[in-house]
């Protein structure tokens, strides 16, 4: 509110200015642009401009601390010659597809359970939401320890329950297990968002519809299929679109848990972009890798604006 305070001071008549200045500032055509200016500066300088730079970098042979010139689409094309990139491209879709699918199914189940009559509603909700608010980098550190090759508590429990043969899988050292571990942590961290948002959607469904369906002889399953699910479509679409873009662009979990390994089998665009762009200094190539996130972003934004928020602006 400090910014607003300063404006009042300059617009006040104490410096000999009359009420006309004050009136001017009260006009929508003046006050509106004034109020959005700070946000606009941030968006232009720190989002739009870097985006233009990303395009330039991606089309150039930029290297840290060296002058660069444009090379056209060479970065985008050269990337396909690299095993690491092809692997990353595949990983991104496998990771996002599996993680989002799990989050949808588990999220709906959890939301349905949370929507029942519960004794400790607030406490249970609080517990369910916790993974979502704790710093991901730190909680992933906890998972890293849980998947440790020597002291894995996951394996210890599995062996104790007779599900795994000792010593159990080396979670972060084997290709498919590492991907499973990364997906697990992503589902763990993203599930609360799905569950709580879907729960809000469930609460909004009028009770009368269920009563009517029940009166018509609909069982629990058909009530879910013909009443709940169709009315949940809007919320589900938003949640899935949101989650898709943020799962696709995930950095923290992979960086902490596997660093993209073993042999690039868990690299995502963000982690590979950092490695190529900063560790080896090939900024142009790194920017090109990051930009592979862009089509997904465009798709999600388009879908959101087109189908979900028809009346937004």
């Amino acid at each position: 509110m400090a910014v607003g305070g300063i404006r009042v001071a300059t617009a006040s008549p104490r410096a000999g200015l009359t009420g006309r200045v004050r009136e001017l500032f009260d006009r929508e055509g003046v006050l509106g642009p004034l109020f959005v200016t700070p946000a606009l500066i941030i968006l232009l300088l720190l989002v739009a401009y870097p985006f233009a730079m990303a395009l330039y970098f991606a089309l150039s042979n930029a290297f840290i601390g060296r002058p660069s010139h444009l090379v056209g689409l060479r970065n985008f094309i050269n990337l396909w010659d690299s095993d690491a990139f092809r692997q990353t491209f595949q990983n991104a879709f496998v990771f996002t597809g599996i993680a989002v699918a799990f989050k949808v199914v588990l999220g709906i189940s959890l939301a349905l359970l949370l929507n029942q009559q519960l004794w400790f509603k607030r406490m249970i909700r609080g517990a369910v939401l916790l993974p979502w608010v704790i710093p991901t980098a730190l909680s992933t550190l906890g998972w890293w320890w849980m998947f440790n090759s020597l002291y894995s508590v996951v394996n210890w429990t599995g062996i104790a329950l007779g599900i795994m043969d000792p010593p159990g899988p080396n979670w972060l050292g084997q290709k498919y297990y590492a991907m499973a571990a990364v997906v697990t942590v992503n589902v763990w961290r993203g599930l609360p968002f799905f569950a709580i948002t879907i729960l809000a959607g469930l609460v909004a469904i009028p009770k009368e519809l269920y009563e009517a369906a029940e009166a018509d002889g609909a069982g629990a399953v058909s009530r879910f299929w013909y009443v709940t699910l169709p009315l949940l479509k809007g919320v589900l679409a938003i949640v899935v679109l949101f989650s898709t873009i943020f799962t696709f662009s995930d950095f923290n979990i992979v960086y902490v848990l596997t660093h993209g390994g073993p042999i690039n089998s868990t690299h995502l665009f963000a982690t590979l972009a950092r490695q190529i762009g900063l560790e080896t200094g090939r900024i142009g190539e790194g920017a090109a890798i990051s930009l592979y996130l862009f089509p997904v972003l465009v798709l999600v934004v388009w879908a959101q604006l087109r189908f979900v928020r028809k009346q937004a602006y």
Partner: protein
Amino acid sequence: MAGFGRRKFWWRIASHLLLIPFLVFALFPFYHMALTSLKTDRELYDRNAVPLLIRQGPTLEHYTKLLWETAFLTWTKNSLLITILATALSVVVGTLAAYALARLRFFGVSSFGTGIFVTYLVPTSLLFLPLAQVVNWLGLADSKWALVVTYPTFLVPFCTWLLLGYFRTVPKEIEECAMLDGCNRLQTLVRILLPVAVPGVICAALFAFTLSWNEFLYALVFVSPAELKTMTVGVISELIRGDIYYWGGLMAGACVGSLPIVIAYVFFLDYYVSGLTAGAVK
């Protein structure tokens, strides 16, 4: 009717039982982290010990080491400073922008609204490489200000979007009455709209605080000197040394580092729930 009531009761029990796996999944990592941080090294690295319990007595050794023998407190101080500044900046800027979007008609307002919404969906990992260059040019590389300035890129759209939702639920008529009584627009914002929208402002501040406290990628890339790092990056990149991991200390760091969020969470749980749904659904 009695049979119906009993069926309801059993269904209630069943719901609780079905929730148990979800709760274990959500909470076990935290339990295990806290447990590890309290164990003696001897028990931690004993391969015959039961990892789910503390048998050889708890110890605070890892915590004292973390606080006095590492730069953990410095990182925490950095994180707090950056988080508070970025949050304050973003809430103020977001409030002004949201007010303009919700109440004022002027040239370009709808494109601005779309711009805010699109930016809201831009993941940090899309632009971090060029943004590092911008930070360089602004002369802010390797300083806390790099983060204070860049965090608003995702906080401002979030706050604006959230507050816009809240502002829209407040009837315009209240402000129109105040304006007839001689209030100017700024006064109606500060004296009428904001007091009504306090839950929204708390919510925006809370989420901005959480998002900046938890931020990792920008903090990792824009700031390299160890003594300027934020807490999350400090714990991940400075406490892990070579091949020997000090698991007790790492888990102690993860626990203490999560503490401010847990405290905020305990006090403001309902705001978190409403902000989470409002951010996505409204």
